[in-house]
């Protein structure tokens, strides 16, 4: 370890490499375009690192398998696309409620339903946050290059393990079909975090008793001598079902607040020429690369355009967005759906007009197509 190497990888391969670097030991999945080649890549490679790759009978089994593996102490992950993600909905809530560290790679393709399996899209901005019923905390990270697929998958594991939450890495069809140079940094050049272990003896340990400062309970795995209850019903600190107001309120608030309290390790964004931007674009994923070209070319013509790119989508860097929009006369949200991210941007930037440029296209929009679609505001 320690030596960084160079890869020429698509985002699937880069995410797989990131997972290996983060210490992935168990992967379960069900084949789906465009996530299957991540699966194949890991099937070849992970066993060499002492890990296990399982093809399950469907996506529901895959996510439940990784939840079980996580409780057995393994860093665990699955990868899928929209249809599979929908099937995983119930168990993602189960992972949130039982505070099970898991990572889910979700490669967006054109929906709804089976949609167009071989085309790109960004239809899961809202679904990735609210995929399961009830109110809970979840983290969603969105790479826009193979390098970020590598880096953010490592970050996803760090957050999942340290905060005991499900973390989604939301990529798209274009990213996973484009190869790019990736610097594969290894520890200590890159930070790899482990879950917190109990400091109390087994007799005193309570599996859902949080540390007061970060609101995260230390996690005892199966087989380590602790009494561990994995309870998806409303439970108290011991893990006992407790259908009473104060316990329920305390639990749900903590499931959400633990992400807020630890925002510093989650929230991330990038800006491109935003300092004096009069027109601020907001975009994420592969389409943000096209918007970068729009901004770059406008700047050559003296037009003051800028780009704010959320890297953590949930939660978003709200302060960063407001700062980027400070000098803007208008904010233009470019997304490959019919208006989802725009609702968050409207909520965060309240004092400027926020416009939506919805691009319901099946391939990566060109910079020209974006300019054309946004023309009425430019």
């Amino acid at each position, binding site marked *: 370890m320690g030596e960084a190497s*160079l890869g020429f990888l698509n985002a699937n391969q880069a995410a797989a490499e990131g997972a290996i670097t983060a210490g992935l030991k168990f992967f379960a999945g069900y084949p789906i375009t465009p996530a299957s080649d991540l699966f194949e890549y890991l099937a070849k490679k992970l066993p060499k690192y002492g890990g296990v790759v399982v093809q399950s009978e469907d996506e529901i089994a895959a996510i439940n398998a990784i939840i079980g593996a996580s409780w057995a102490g393994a860093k665990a992950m699955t990868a899928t696309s929209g249809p599979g993600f929908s099937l995983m909905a119930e168990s993602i809530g189960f992972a949130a409620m039982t505070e099970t560290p898991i990572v889910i790679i979700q490669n967006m393709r054109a929906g709804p339903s089976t949609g167009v399996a071989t085309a790109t899209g960004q239809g899961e901005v809202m679904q990735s946050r609210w995929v399961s019923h009830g109110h809970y905390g979840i983290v969603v990270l969105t790479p826009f290059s193979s390098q970020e697929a590598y880096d953010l998958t490592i970050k996803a594991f760090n957050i999942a393990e340290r905060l005991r939450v499900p973390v989604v890495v939301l990529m798209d069809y274009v990213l996973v079909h*484009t*190869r*790019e*140079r990736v610097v594969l940094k290894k520890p200590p050049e890159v930070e790899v975090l482990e879950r917190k272990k109990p400091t109390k003896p087994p007799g005193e340990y309570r599996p859902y008793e949080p540390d007061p400062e970060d609101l995260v309970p230390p996690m005892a795995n199966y087989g380590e001598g602790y009494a561990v209850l994995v309870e998806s019903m409303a439970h108290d600190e011991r893990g006992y079902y407790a259908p009473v107001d104060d316990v329920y309120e305390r639990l749900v608030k903590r499931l959400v607040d633990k992400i807020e309290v630890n925002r510093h390790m989650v929230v991330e964004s990038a800006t491109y020429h935003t300092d004096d931007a009069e027109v601020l674009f907001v975009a994420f994923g592969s389409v943000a690369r096209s918007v970068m*070209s729009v901004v770059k070319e406008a700047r050559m013509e003296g037009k003051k355009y800028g780009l704010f790119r959320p890297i953590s989508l949930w939660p978003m860097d709200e302060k960063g967005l407001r700062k980027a929009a400070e000098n803007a006369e208008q904010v233009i949200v470019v997304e490959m759906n019919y208006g989802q991210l725009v609702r968050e941007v409207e909520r965060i930037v309240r004092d400027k007009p926020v416009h939506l440029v919805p691009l319901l296209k099946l391939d990566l929009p060109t910079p020209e197509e974006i300019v054309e679609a946004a023309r009425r505001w430019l």
Partner: protein
Amino acid sequence: MERLEIMIAGRGGQGILLAGYLLGLTLIKHGYYVVQSESYSAETRGGDSRSELIVLKEQGEADYMRVRRADIAVFMYGEQLRKYSDKVRNDALVIVDSTFIKPEELREGWRSILIPFSRIAEEQAGTIRVANIVMLGALARITGLYTLDELKETIQRNVKPGWIELNLRAAELGYKVAEEHGA
């Protein structure tokens, strides 16, 4: 060099995708940031096959991921030349396999280089299957983006063992023929 766009196109079976992959690997070893995408039709032989590379000095400048107007275009077959000419700059460097493409098919304004990659591969390396590597050898000489040795290292590390020797020879042939063409 700010952003260099390269397009390699031909028909399925000509090794276009492998050529694009090996070219990308070689350019990365040389220190460039490379973005590569590919498109192909469902047929494994005879359909369209296209590899696009964006070559940059720094990752920070990696914007739009596809070719808009290629600065360098390689056409290994006439049908794809006709189909994708509009994605090539008017003053582009255009390298074509003259085994399959006639000089009159080339646009005025292009800096065109015609080399019979497929014929050379067949006659001098013994199989048309390495025409793509003959082309990469020539491209090293013509563009100066990477050296023949860097290409040979990529071949050694990434080509199936039984094919290494043949491909190394093909790369050398391509480099030499480009030299003879005055490149």
